[in-house]
């Protein structure tokens, strides 16, 4: 810009311009991050999947009792844990905490890590028993973890559709939406 355009208030103009541009960008960023914001999931006990599933060869249904019989998989309650952990099995501090909780009859509420949207009909039984889909297909290597992940995994429709299309099963909206 030539010198005559360089008014004494150029820096103000630039500031305003920068404000507007950055405001829009930041607001958009705010919007987007809000939408994908994740609140960490805390579990009552730092459950070691690997210990149970790999080391002790327990089937998933030991704790997730319903996935072969119901639409949902189910989370273990205190009684389920108590079948083994009424007394100490190992040496970990977490287990000591668990045993203490169980003896004190404290409630044990696990928080789900994999969340379907609430407007979906999904039958675990149908997928696991009938279609023989492996748990890992959706749940990844959760069985290999030694510490519970903190992030919720939200399952998206495109994941479902991709699989349904590949296997040539229904993709009618109302098959799953309700």
């Amino acid at each position, binding site marked *: 810009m030539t010198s005559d355009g360089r008014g004494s208030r150029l820096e103000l103009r630039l500031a305003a311009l920068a404000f507007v541009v950055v405001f829009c960008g930041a607001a958009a960023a705010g919007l987007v991050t809000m939408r994908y914001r994740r609140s960490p999931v805390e579990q009552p006990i730092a459950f070691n999947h690997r210990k149970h599933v790999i080391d002790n060869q327990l089937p998933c249904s030991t704790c997730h009792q319903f996935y072969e019989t119901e639409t949902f998989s189910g989370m273990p309650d205190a009684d389920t844990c108590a079948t083994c952990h009424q007394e100490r099995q190992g040496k970990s501090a977490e287990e000591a905490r668990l045993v203490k909780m169980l003896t004190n009859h404290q409630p044990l509420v696990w928080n789900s890590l994999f969340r379907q949207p609430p407007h979906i009909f999904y039958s675990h039984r149908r997928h696991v028993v009938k279609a023989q889909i492996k748990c890992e297909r959706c749940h990844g290597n959760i069985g290999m973890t030694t510490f519970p992940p903190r992030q919720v995994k939200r399952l998206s429709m495109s994941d479902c559709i991709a699989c349904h299309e590949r296997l040539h099963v229904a993709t009618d*909206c*109302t098959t799953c*939406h*309700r």
Partner: protein
Amino acid sequence: MTRWGMVIDLDRCTACQACVVACQVENNIPLADRVDCEHGRGISWIRLAPFREGEHGTRPSLRLIPILCMHCERPPCVKVCPATATIIGEEGLVGQIYPRCIGCRYCTTACPYTVRRFNWKRPEWPEPMEQGLSPDVSVRPRGVVEKCSFCHHRLQRAKDKARFEDRPLQEGDYVPACVETCPAEAMFFGDLDDPRSTVARLAESPRAIRLLEELGTKPKVIYLSKGESGGDV
């Protein structure tokens, strides 16, 4: 092909409105308090519409007809939805996909039966009423349109069940909540394409009428008019 449909025998119907409440409880319909109702915002997927007959001077009469989504074969709502949030499924159910609905209410205005409802506010249940909510039906957020789904979550459940019993879906496996509760047993539900089904047989009755048939919507809710039976049951 399966083509789900309903038959309502107006000669049996007593206008008791059990269907209205059964539907509301089954489908997690939000509570509407007095103020909402005064604003005309109460949601019901099935309602009884009054048809008054008789001019002044002659003896008046009153006909009450249960009206719900007709699950038209040519649904005017599906055509006009700009976001493909309302669709007609392979088995003829007109579905509403809540997470896709933008809330423009074009479908509600396009529906000649005025059976679509809108969530004017966020649904709220005072503690502990939320405990009565069914996990089978999604709780709709505010700002989206909803309507009778023929309780299609029951179809999803019934299919799931039938599949594990290694049998095809049978008549009576899948019945909407209103039909299940109708005290006068005036409502029937089933596959209109299955010639052996009750609804297919009743749909052929000389008493069978369809509402606003002249609009070409091809409703799948069929009424049996009041009057002498034509040997149809």
